[in-house]
């Protein structure tokens, strides 16, 4: 069994526990409601603008299907093209290996600090903590990541990690940590403060790390999509660049970018195009870092690949459209998911990366409404995978001895036996009709007995009617 190193936050409570606390935080709910509503509106606007949006989604899905089916071939091709262009390729089977490689590469430069482009993959492997242990300081340069780092908090959204914080909270944080007592809460001024704060670092730090949005097997090009220019700084100014990339981020051909560079910006920030995209290939003479390392990370991805239903999870381009549209996420925020990957995509990705045994509450963190599937730019059927994973969670529990005495499991098994035959089903129905009377009010059971009480705490259970459909049908046939 896999250990939940990385990905999930240690000691994070189960989703339902975290969610309960989160929904009681009114400031958080206000911040989340406002932010997700804004971004949903923007996304819808720029998506409606494209007459071929559905064709682009299908193209995106097909390209990713192809990637998964031939992942080994494309990875070997990428290694060859990157190497040919003057880069170095490293293979890391898990977080531990990846962190070791990156640490070793940084130590070889003699530098004790690095600048970082926002990267979920390095969050997933907890690179910053590993570097800290090795005496290396990692400086986050994305504004939201910087906010999170200064506040010593965890990200609550994959694109906008500080989405749970409003401007006055950010102002208070910057006033304190940047020693700027006169700072206002005007977003422009807050951004300027970050510019000032990080400029020296961009000019002087010799090593940078980044993730990758896409890497092209055909050409060896790596692509980073961003807004602020911190990405361009990290990819241009240092001497050494180390990119950590999940193996599923590969695209076969250069022209595939023509599809994904439409899908991603419109789905994530709701813009026609993000302000800056950098595409580099190995090292470029007299321009940018002269040493480039690409670390290819598995860390559970090949296990996801082996599952025919779950495999589509690897199509994800981390746009966050599913998160912004999710009614559950909007109310709980990201921390309740206890993972660097929150929201609907997190609810299917996290349990698959760490094993369902270590994140068994996450496949239930959804009402299965399907809004996430509708907005997904690569058409990941998230509800399908959620149900598939719920099945896995139950099947896993049933292999454990304690399940023999578990009320829910026994009840479900009894129900399965009862419902399997007409006679036992009808007998149970009639028995239920008689037994339910103390609990029925106006045709509903509002406070169920025993284990049913948990279920009816949130919703009403329709009572078994005096005449069932079967009784009615038999009576109708008698009358004819």
């Amino acid at each position, binding site marked *: 069994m896999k250990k939940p190193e990385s990905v999930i936050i240690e000691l994070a409570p189960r989703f339902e526990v975290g969610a309960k606390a989160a929904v009681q935080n009114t400031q958080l709910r206000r911040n989340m409601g406002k932010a997700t509503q804004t971004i949903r509106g923007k996304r819808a606007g720029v998506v409606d603008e494209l007459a*071929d949006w559905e064709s682009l989604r299908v193209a995106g899905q097909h390209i990713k299907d*192809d990637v998964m089916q031939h992942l080994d071939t494309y990875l070997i091709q990428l290694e060859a093209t990157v190497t040919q262009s003057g880069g170095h390729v490293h293979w890391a089977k898990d977080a531990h290996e990846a962190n070791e490689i990156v640490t070793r590469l940084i130590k070889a430069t003699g530098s004790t600090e690095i600048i970082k482009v926002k990267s979920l993959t390095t969050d997933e492997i907890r690179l910053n903590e590993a570097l800290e242990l090795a005496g290396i300081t990692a400086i986050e340069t994305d504004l939201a990541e910087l906010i999170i780092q200064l506040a010593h908090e965890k990200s609550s959204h994959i694109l906008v990690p500080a989405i749970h914080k409003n401007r006055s909270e950010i102002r208070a944080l910057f006033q304190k940590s940047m020693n700027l007592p006169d700072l206002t809460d005007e977003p422009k001024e807050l951004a*300027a403060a970050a510019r000032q704060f990080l400029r020296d670092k961009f000019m002087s730090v010799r090593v940078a790390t980044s993730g990758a949005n896409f890497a092209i097997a055909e050409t060896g090009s790596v692509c980073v999509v961003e807004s602020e220019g911190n990405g361009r700084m990290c990819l241009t100014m240092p001497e050494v660049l180390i990119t950590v990339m999940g193996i599923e981020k590969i695209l076969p051909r*250069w022209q595939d970018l023509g599809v994904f560079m439409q899908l991603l910006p419109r789905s994530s920030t709701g813009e026609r195009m993000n*302000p800056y995209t950098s595409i580099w290939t190995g090292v470029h003479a007299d321009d940018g870092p002269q040493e480039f390392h690409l670390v290819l990370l598995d860390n559970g991805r090949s296990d996801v690949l082996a599952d025919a239903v779950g495999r589509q999870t690897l199509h994800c381009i981390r746009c966050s459209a599913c998160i912004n549209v999710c009614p559950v996420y909007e109310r709980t925020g990201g921390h309740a998911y206890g993972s660097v990957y929150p929201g609907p995509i997190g609810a299917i990705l996290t349990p698959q990366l760490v094993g369902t045994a270590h994140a068994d509450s996450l496949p239930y963190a959804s009402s299965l409404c399907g809004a996430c599937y509708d907005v997904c730019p690569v058409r990941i059927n998230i509800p399908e995978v959620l149900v598939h994973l719920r099945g896995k969670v139950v099947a896993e529990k049933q292999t454990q001895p304690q399940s023999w005495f578990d009320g829910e499991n026994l009840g479900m098994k009894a129900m399965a036996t009862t419902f399997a035959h007409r006679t036992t089903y009808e007998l149970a129905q009639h028995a239920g009709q008689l037994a339910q009377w103390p609990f029925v009010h106006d045709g509903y059971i509002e406070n169920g007995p025993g284990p049913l009480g948990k279920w009816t705490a949130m919703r009403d259970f329709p009572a078994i009617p005096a005449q069932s459909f079967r009784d009615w049908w038999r009576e109708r046939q008698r009358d004819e």
Partner: protein
Amino acid sequence: MLAKIRTAINTGDRGDFHEAHTSAPYITNDDGNVAVRIELFAHRVAEYKAWVGHCTAAGIAQAVAERLVIRGKKRMVIPSDLPDSWLSPGVEYIRDSQLDRTVIAGMDGVLSGAALGIAQTGTIVLDGGRFQGRRMISLLPDYHLCIIRAQDIVGVVPEAFAQLATTMQIPMQPYTFISGPSATSDIELNRVEGVHGPRTLDVFIVE
């Protein structure tokens, strides 16, 4: 690691796979109306809160001069191959020949050409080629004045990648796609212009 990936691809149920690569009919070029395309480009660039103007090939120097006066910029870094005919008197131009980064950062702005424009998204593409210089010079100064030829503007995003691919060879050039000035949406998801890249972007379309 590769062995494990191969096993994962090949074992068990392979699932329902689509044909390798798609024939999904997404749009790969606009309708070919050049005037509309250029108008759209100008409009979309301006929507990112960049300033957009038009000039003729013979009028570049004058257009640049006027713009720099309005912006109050007196010391500009330029790519080493930028033509003298673009330069106006009264401004100090410094050609980048591996200049020190602190010198570049200390300049009022950068004047450069561009490889491509994308009308649909209001995007400028730099590839380090003709009149563009290395990436650092269009990044460190706080002001970017970019001159793009009308014939280099394409309609839609896939066209841009198709066009860039015609010169595709190893080693590839470094590409930078610029859509408006530096911005962030990290504070309450509102787009705010101006973080680390140039906070002001002016564009001339040369017709």
